[in-house]
């Protein structure tokens, strides 16, 4: 985010005249709407906003947002975003990528944009499949996923985007899913984080990986399978009847029952978004034995890359005159006169 004068816009102001070309029923529609609904609430300025994407279904996103947009090449959006932000730190940069784009071909750039802490929002749409190339398994596909390239089921273990991001040094990590009503709040938190804000958004690919997230995202019984994290609040789910506590012997998390709402007695942890140790446990918390951790898992800002680059540049340039003639004549020179050379 940037400290800018808020602009008054409506959802309509963020829609382009381009026909949206995702498959009917694709989760991307819901994410697009959530973003378009959130931007006016943030007071964002379309002229000052840039959506940068790589390649894949998710990366068509910029074409549908009425702002500046750059649909780049596969996996490299973080590098483009870095150049854009260093050239003009005033711009609000959103990066849209997918599990193939951001975790596979562009994994290296995802790592470095997080490590450097470039001020931008990174939305990684995770549908656990390559959609645009017709359904091959992806680096986040679960083991055993059958696809045109894995007819017998995939054998390699999936990557966890949030664990990867934290390992890379991210200072903001959040999770949401396409049709969740909470998604705009997650986006707002990402926007208000100064620095690289990493948001994994589970997205339903209805053609190639339909309802793969239903185990936790389906509305029925969602309370039992979703842990929505809130800073300063106890980690409760299942309508407050269960919570997450620390197993102090094994140094792992555990699910505990909460009797009569007395979560303190049950030892339920109060979420502290600045606690990196808790963040490490949350990103690794396996779904199944545990609910899916959603919302803001970690938020502890540090100085941004572009601010450091600008500060260093200003310091290095301070008191120096950008005189080209003097620069060219720098170093050991000599003058040739009619009488020959001299120092």
């Amino acid at each position, binding site marked *: 985010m940037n400290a800018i004068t808020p602009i008054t816009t409506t959802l309509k102001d963020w829609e*382009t005249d*381009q026909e949206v070309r995702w498959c009917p029923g694709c989760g991307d529609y819901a994410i697009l709407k959530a973003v378009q609904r959130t931007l006016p609430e943030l007071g964002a300025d*379309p*002229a*000052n906003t*840039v959506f*940068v994407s790589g*390649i894949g279904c998710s990366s068509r996103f*910029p*074409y549908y947002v009425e*702002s*500046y*947009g*750059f*649909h*780049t*090449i*596969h996996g*490299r959006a*973080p*590098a*483009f*975003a*870095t*150049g*854009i*932000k*260093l*050239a*003009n730190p*005033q*711009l609000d940069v959103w990066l849209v990528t997918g599990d193939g784009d951001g975790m596979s071909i562009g994994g*290296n*750039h995802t*790592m*470095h944009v997080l490590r450097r802490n470039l001020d931008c929002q990174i939305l990684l749409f995770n549908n656990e499949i390559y959609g645009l190339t017709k359904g091959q398994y992806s680096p986040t596909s679960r083991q055993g996923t059958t696809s045109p390239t894995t007819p017998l089921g995939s054998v390699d273990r999936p990557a966890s985007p949030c664990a990867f991001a934290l390992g890379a040094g991210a200072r903001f990590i959040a999770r949401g899913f396409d049709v969740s009503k909470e998604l705009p709040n997650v986006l707002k938190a990402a926007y208000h984080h100064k620095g690289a804000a990493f948001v994994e958004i589970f997205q339903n690919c209805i053609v190639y990986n339909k309802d793969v997230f239903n185990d936790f995202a389906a509305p029925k019984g969602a309370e039992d399978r979703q842990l929505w994290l809130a800073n300063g609040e106890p980690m409760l789910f299942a309508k407050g009847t269960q919570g997450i506590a620390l197993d102090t012997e094994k140094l792992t998390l555990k699910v505990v029952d909460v009797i009569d709402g007395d979560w303190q007695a049950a030892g339920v942890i109060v979420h502290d978004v600045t606690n990196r140790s808790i963040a490490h446990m949350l990103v690794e918390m396996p779904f199944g034995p545990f609910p899916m951790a959603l919302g803001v898992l970690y938020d502890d800002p540090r100085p941004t890359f572009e601010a450091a*680059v600008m500060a*260093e*540049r200003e310091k*290095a*340039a301070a008191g*120096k*005159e*950008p005189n*080209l*003639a003097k*620069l*060219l*004549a*720098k*170093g*050991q*020179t*000599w*003058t*040739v006169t*009619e009488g*020959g*050379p001299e*120092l």
Partner: protein
Amino acid sequence: MATQLADPEAKSTVAPEAVVVRFAGDSGDGMQLTGGQFTLSSALAGNDFATFPDFPAEIRAPQGTLFGVSAFQINFGSTSIDTAGDAPDVLVAMNPAALKTNVGALKPGGLIIADTGEFTKRNLEKAKYDVSPLEDGSLAKWQVLAFDISALTLESVKPFGLGNKEALRCKNMWTLGLALWMFDRDRAPLIDWLNAKFAKNKVLADANVAALNAGHAYGETAELGGHVKKLHLGPVPTPAGLYRTITGADAVALGLVAGAQLAHLPMFFGGYPITPASSILHALVRLKEFGVTTFQAEDEIAAICAAIGASYAGQLGVTSSSGPGIALKGEAMGLAVMTELPLVIVNSQRGGPSTGLPTKTEQSDLYQAVYGRNGDAPIPVVSARSPSDAFECAIEACRIAVQYMTPVILLTDGYIANAAEPWQVPDPATFKEFPVTFLAEKNAGDTLLPYKRDGKGTRPWIKPGTPGLMHRIGGIEKAVDTGHLDYSPANHQAQTDARKAKVDGIAQSIPDQDVCLGAPGGKLAVVGWGSTYGPIHQAVGRARAKGMDVSHIHVRHIWPMPQNLGELLKGYDKVLVPEMNTGQFKTVLRDQFLVDARPLTKTSGQPFTIAEIEAAIEGALA
């Protein structure tokens, strides 16, 4: 040139017009430093010169080994110098390995100066000598001056109490001192330089100065077997003005800074370490006050993508690499073509393919520059002929990039990047500016057309942050004018044609091809590009002096080529194209102009010698 350097019979010393000296030693012996300082001393003596640093890819190769030899050759004289010289007149060999790997190049009758202190049994074994060549008569066709430089150096720095290892590191200054005496050079600027270099360590400064003075005094007073005479090479007639030495890497860096200033733009440079291109990044990181932002990216791809991002945001994006890195940047170059954003890509070519010869020179990335992308992706290509020429070429690359909204490739090579030559410092007031205008409001009434082309076929440059001009660009084919996604057959045809026409049209903004030596027509044209300029120019000059009908044409604009080039070439009976590859420019010339261009190729990692090209000229005219 018959050298008088080592002629014991010579009654009086007649100085030659030019002398070639090669300093060779272990990669830890400081030969590049010695060469660099001897170069400076040549400049101050008013000589013209050209240098050729030739060092191993290994940073600290095992001591005394054949592959660990580092050499620095300089050709200097009182006449115009275009190359680092074919064969050395003098070889300074700091150890047996340096002698073994370099003596073959020495002219018959040339002078070998060898440090006997290093000709130990162990070092001889490492250099694969069974017997010391200093003793077995195998060096009979040369003059040999062998004495214990190591011991003499140790003696000279004794008062400073250095350890043996540190003391021996002063050997290169002792040797430099001797060389300064041989060529009648002033020691004062080098003493100043040493004092500045070791300002924080007075003892080391004093020791190095003492070694330098001792080497000089040795020449002055010792009995050198009557072999060596002190020579004075006078200054070359040069236009009056301010001069400095410059390497190609520095010239590119300065040219990019100048180009960005002439375009009235801040510059963004994205780079990733690679030999021999890193020096450009090293130079630019120190120029932040000129509005330069440098970014050492995580890889070559990120380096170019960040540069394109910066161009998109309104700065002059630049990236630089060598062949392997340029290959990685290929896809992003295509995006810059499609999105029509300005970008300068510098390729300091080295021997390939793959990792190839990282520290050796070659011109084998011409196909890669002209053709090396997917799709019809025309990119203008400019090539520098010498270290100082790289300055102008960098400015030219910036001009084309911003005036035509296109990526531009600037080709140099390992030789140009590392070699130094004298450069008359230009006056920036004489440079022609090419200020950029960004689109500030809609360009078609109430509508914005991001791909509306002007008379040159160029689209407007629109910075994010500009109110009212929001639009989207990307790598998918763009509709004419609107820039919307458009896969339709007619549109792709129209945009492919438009991109080609735009780049072809750049030819209208570049000067006609000149003939740099000889006549516009005749029996033979020797057509070169890039760093072969020196040897071609000298060879053509010598052939013409013998009365041969031959001309030298040197092409800066590889793509598109000057409009008159085809007609010009058709005015010669024969066209010979010397290049350090298997004949790439030759193929492009044949393709573009249907001329019977003949190749003269060399891919040894070493520049052409004048003699090689002279022989080819004689062969072509025989």
